[in-house]
């Protein structure tokens, strides 16, 4: 399962579509808090794709909460952002996708962290 956290529905749609086309199962959350609830409810994605600028709880806050929780700290996180790469070191991301990114990059990441088989 891949978790996509982004407040822009049409972007979530494109990301989900391409990943589903590749055979991955995908779930999404509209903000950090919704994602955190899902994680606390037991969701354990093989990869979380995280936007930074979101209402209610930002990607920064969600990532901080994940890093603080030993159960969540090890989940691979790909940050999707318009920010420069240099500013994101403290988030300890597994990967950074700078907007606008190519979908093929996304597929590569999914392949790397979730295997080629559907999870």
């Amino acid at each position, binding site marked *: 399962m891949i978790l996509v956290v982004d407040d*822009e529905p*049409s*972007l979530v*749609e*494109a*990301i989900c*579509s*391409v990943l589903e*086309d590749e055979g991955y199962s995908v779930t999404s959350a509209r903000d950090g808090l919704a994602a955190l609830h899902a994680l606390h409810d037991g969701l354990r994605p093989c990869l979380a794709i995280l936007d930074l600028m979101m209402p209610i709880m930002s990607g920064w806050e969600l990532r901080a909460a994940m890093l603080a929780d030993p159960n969540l700290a090890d989940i691979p996180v790909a940050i*999707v952002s*318009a*920010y*420069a*790469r*240099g500013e994101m070191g403290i988030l300890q991301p597994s990967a950074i996708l700078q*907007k*606008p*990114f*190519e*979908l*093929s990059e996304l597929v590569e990441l999914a392949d790397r962290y979730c295997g080629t088989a559907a999870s």
Partner: protein
Amino acid sequence: MLGSGDVQTFDFAALLEAMPDAVVVADMQSRIVYANASVERVLGWAPAALVGQHLHAIQPERLHEAHTTGFGRYASTGERKLFGSPIRLPALASDGTERDVELNLAEITGPGGERLVMGVLRDLRERVDLTAVLDDARLVEHERAARAAADRSRAHFELLAAVSERLAASLDPEVTVQSVADTVVPAFADWCVVDLLRDDRTLETVASSHRDPRLAGRITELRSAYPPNERTNPPHPIYRAIDGGASIRETVSPEDLARRAVDARHLAMLNELGIGSHVVALLATGGRIIGAVSLVRRPGREPFDDDDTSTAEGVARRAGIATENARLYRSAEQAVEMRDRFLAVASHELRTPLSVVYGHWELLARWLRNDPAASTRPNAKKIETSVQRLGQGVDQLRRLVEELLDVSRLAHGNMDLRRAPVDLTSVVRQAVDDASASAVTGRLSLELPDGPLFGQWDAARLGQVVDNLLLNALKYSPGDQTVEVALTRSGGRARLRVTDAGIGIPPDETESIFEPFNRARNASAQHFPGLGLGLAVSREIVTRLGGRMWAESEGEGRGSSFFVELDLGDPGDPSPPAATDVGAQR
């Protein structure tokens, strides 16, 4: 003091002897009966030798006849034609030379009651000497005055130079005017206030200074408690200067001050600060009055004069120009800041919608590619072309947003560069391949050196530079022209040259095209699309990588060459770390 009753007993003979002028007394027959001691000094005669001689003895011969006639008439008729006022005439000295003398005549009575004539002869040479002495004194006085004027004039220029220097040291308007106030106090004025004129004609005190530092705050207090009023009669001097369009210089008496004060507290404040004289000089820029510099000397100090007024005007003129410069600089700074902020926000905000468009275009392209039935659909060719055009548009958009973001990074000095060993030949080859593939028109020729060219560079950023040069060359060249790309090695440097046969660059613009948002005249005029950011960003990247970038052109319509030169680094050299961040703000 000699009383009138003493005159009889006064020793007149001794007085005559002591006189510096020659005194000669003659009877009615022109016979000399007395000569004092000074006769010897004035005419060279021993007094005793003169006594008994005719007056002709001390007269040049040519005057003898006139004397005889005139004296004869006087002796017989008493007519005193020459008496009463001094006569200037030549006298004959004992050695036969003539002396200019001033003669005063008086009739006296001799011991026996006889009429006598007394002549007092003053040597004019001595007068001349005396005049010379006086002239000398006057010269000394002149010189002293001239020196004083020179001193003042030097002080004037020194003050103005000091003001200019202080003004040039800062572009902050507050610092600027305060430094003026500090410079003129206490040497030129005891205190000083600089007021700027607001649009509603009220005054804003922007600087003040007092020779007594404890009173500096009192000036601000005075201005806020009793702001200069233009409705009093007469209006406050600042308003009179502003309305008259000229400086005002006044000496202020305690009575004047009492008249001007609004109340006792006001008067007390004015007296504490001290006003004996003041000059109000206008601050103006471009013919517009923007405020005034008020300079005040306390009572007891020499009041301001005309020279001081012109000094004050010089100070105000400099302060006015500097204030305006500072204001312009600040507004330019604000504009640049605003532009940078806009760039940062705009490029950032554009990224999300761009991601959506880009993502869906990619999705569409993938579906088309992966759909085995795609080619059999109606309009298959049209759909394919449409998706391709969409892709080109999105790519262009992406590049523009990228450039905007880069410019904003440049402005904030936080462009990210990651150095690592890079082979420039492969970067150039890749860029040429990409450009050839996407070029709708035009061709590219590529000349590469035999081996690789390694250096410690940022591959992605260098790729961006080469892409940019190739896209520009294709964009500004007419359809079927070939763009030459040549990469060569010379000594320890790699040199890339991209030459097109396109619209060229006006000779005076080969430098300015590298400034952000600046495009060559002919590029804008011929409506080539672009923001004018690519070259600015490219040059910044090359510069940060330690290289240089420049353009050459024979002129408009005669093509252009762009050059990039970079230092080669030995990839086997272990001293530089494999990857180094060289961003300015890390």
